[in-house]
């Protein structure tokens, strides 16, 4: 099987969907001619293959980029636009929150908005809080938006292809740290369904629910705990909206214990939603209180020592698991 970083997997998905459907176009800051010519990055080489009609470099204008997607999607195109870093989605938020998410509803179901907004996210590259800020919970709080956050290159490819074919607005969040972590990606064509979680590691003692870049941390913690004879079931949500409550509940009913792990900050984080779902539907089956392992409630600091402190690690996960065993 081919080994690809997540950026390369995204690149393949874009290529395949653009070849398949001439209504698909991409736009964003430097998606055609960018600063870096790096084969690990998502849009490298697309301008060469598809030309400047379908690969649109835009000015530094996030509101216009998102609005372009909303307007063009209603008119029948399939825009895939990029917001360079997650914090800059705030500049596009009116178009996303008040328009992409709501215009179909406002039309009484007459219009649809088949668009994808790709957003790069994640801490760990020392740029500080105006570049690193995971806002997936904000977006998940807007009915009308699907929110997808893959953890592996294979899922990224399959999910992005599904997102492009979906008739709803999809926010597709890519953790940049994963661009440089190659993983297996099937050669043949496939789609990964949006709204379906994936049990990435089965286990009977505790359910560890996570998504995005934290999957790696979850695996490390699971391996360490396995040496102590504790079997952790790692559930990768892959999509926050729609949320696969069935898979979460099935796992928790089996293990009776839950730890939710995300890199985003704690208060109002999506772990709260996952926890609430479990409390509502599986309270009786819980053998212990659940635990959240998240970033602390601070902006992501730049300094390496501080940034390491911010990012949840396997030690914290192991501790949380031990606390509820």
């Amino acid at each position, binding site marked *: 099987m081919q080994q690809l970083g997540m950026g390369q997997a995204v690149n393949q998905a874009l290529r395949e969907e653009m070849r398949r459907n001439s209504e698909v176009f991409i736009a964003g800051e430097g998606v055609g001619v960018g600063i870096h010519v790096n084969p690990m990055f998502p849009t490298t080489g697309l301008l060469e293959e598809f030309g400047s009609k379908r690969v649109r470099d835009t000015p530094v204008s996030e509101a216009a980029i998102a609005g372009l997607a909303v307007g063009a999607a209603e008119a029948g195109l399939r825009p895939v636009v990029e917001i360079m870093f997650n914090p*800059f989605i705030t500049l596009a938020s009116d178009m996303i929150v008040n328009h992409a998410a709501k215009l179909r509803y406002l039309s009484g179901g007459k219009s649809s908005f088949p668009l994808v907004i790709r957003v790069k996210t994640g801490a760990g590259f020392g740029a500080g809080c105006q570049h690193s800020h995971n806002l997936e919970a904000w977006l998940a709080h807007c009915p009308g938006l699907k929110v997808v956050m893959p953890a592996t290159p294979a899922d990224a490819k399959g999910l992005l292809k599904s997102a492009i074919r979906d008739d709803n607005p999809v926010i597709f969040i890519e953790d940049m740290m994963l661009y440089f972590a190659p993983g297996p990606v099937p050669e043949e064509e496939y789609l990964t369904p949006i709204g379906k979680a994936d049990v990435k590691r089965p286990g009977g003692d505790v359910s560890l629910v996570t998504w995005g870049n934290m999957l790696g941390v979850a695996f490390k913690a699971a391996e360490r705990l396995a040496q102590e004879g504790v079997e952790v079931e790692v559930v990768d949500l892959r999509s926050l909206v729609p949320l696969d409550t069935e898979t979460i509940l099935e796992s928790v009913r089996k293990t009776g214990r839950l730890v939710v792990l995300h890199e985003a900050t704690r208060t109002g984080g999506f772990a709260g939603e996952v926890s609430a779902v479990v409390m509502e539907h599986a309270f009786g089956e819980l053998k212990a209180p659940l635990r959240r392992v998240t970033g602390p409630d601070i902006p992501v600091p730049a300094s390496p020592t*501080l940034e390491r402190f911010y990012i949840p690690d396997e030690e914290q996960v192991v501790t949380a698991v031990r606390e509820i065993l």
Partner: protein
Amino acid sequence: MQIPVEKKREMLWTMILSRAFSDTLSELCKTQGRVPGMMILSTGQEAVGSGVCAALLPEDVIVTNHRSHSHLLAKGADPRALMAEIYCKSTGCNKGKSGTLHLAVPEVNAPCTSTVVGAGLPLAVGQAFAQQYREERRVTVCFFGDGAADEGSFHEALNLASLWRLPVIFVCENNLYAGAQRYEEHTRTRHVADRAEGYAIPGEVVDGNDVLAVYASLTKSRQRALAGEGPTLLECKTYRCHGHSESDPQHYQPEEEIRSWRGKCPIPRLSDNLLAEGRITRDEIREMQAKAEAMVRDAVSFAEASPYPLAEEALEDVWAD
């Protein structure tokens, strides 16, 4: 405009210091991992910060962006505190919270730095509003790039500042590139300054590599602002001699273009002028250079010898008590 010779020498000094600072950082970046994060420099653009800040008083405010080093040095920031912050050390001006991208130095009235492109303009509107509100005799300058003029925030800020005649000067540092996009690939407005007309404020194009011209224009617009006549949009035409950041190979910048702009370097332009006027000697220029290099070496030693912040310090500084 008659510019006092002391002012000219001050501008030469701050440009030389800024250049020594960025040349050193550029060298340091060649060793992987020595300085964390992105490295965004203003090599070749020093005349903008130096000319602007020389025309300001210490109580005037500057709002700057991701490419801030030369602005902050010209405003009088301590090279040690800046360098230590760029190194993300605990002795840095922001205790390692910021790193290079949002260096805030309230001590020299540079309190609101943002790496969000275009964010500086509305922030500057707020600073200028407070100055007007309190009837203070000082002004705010906002530095931003040509790319930032494409954000909605630029337009909203200009309109509001114009409407309320706020004492703010919007200084566009047009270095011909926004990321990998050349100016004419991101806008069809001939000059960013032309947009001033849409907001009924003066817009002026200045040679951004001529520090004396920058100084003169800023002085004029500052007087206008103090007289209650409102904002000015000043566009300084210059060139980004390095890549967007030090990891940018500049594959999209024609070599000939880089070479020709390096030939228009603002530092010899001023020093030659001063030499011709007999206002400085070659020895004095060499002394300035040696002094700048020593200051930067000292700043680097200070930064390298400083500790990283303790992990738990991450929790501090979120809230005002």
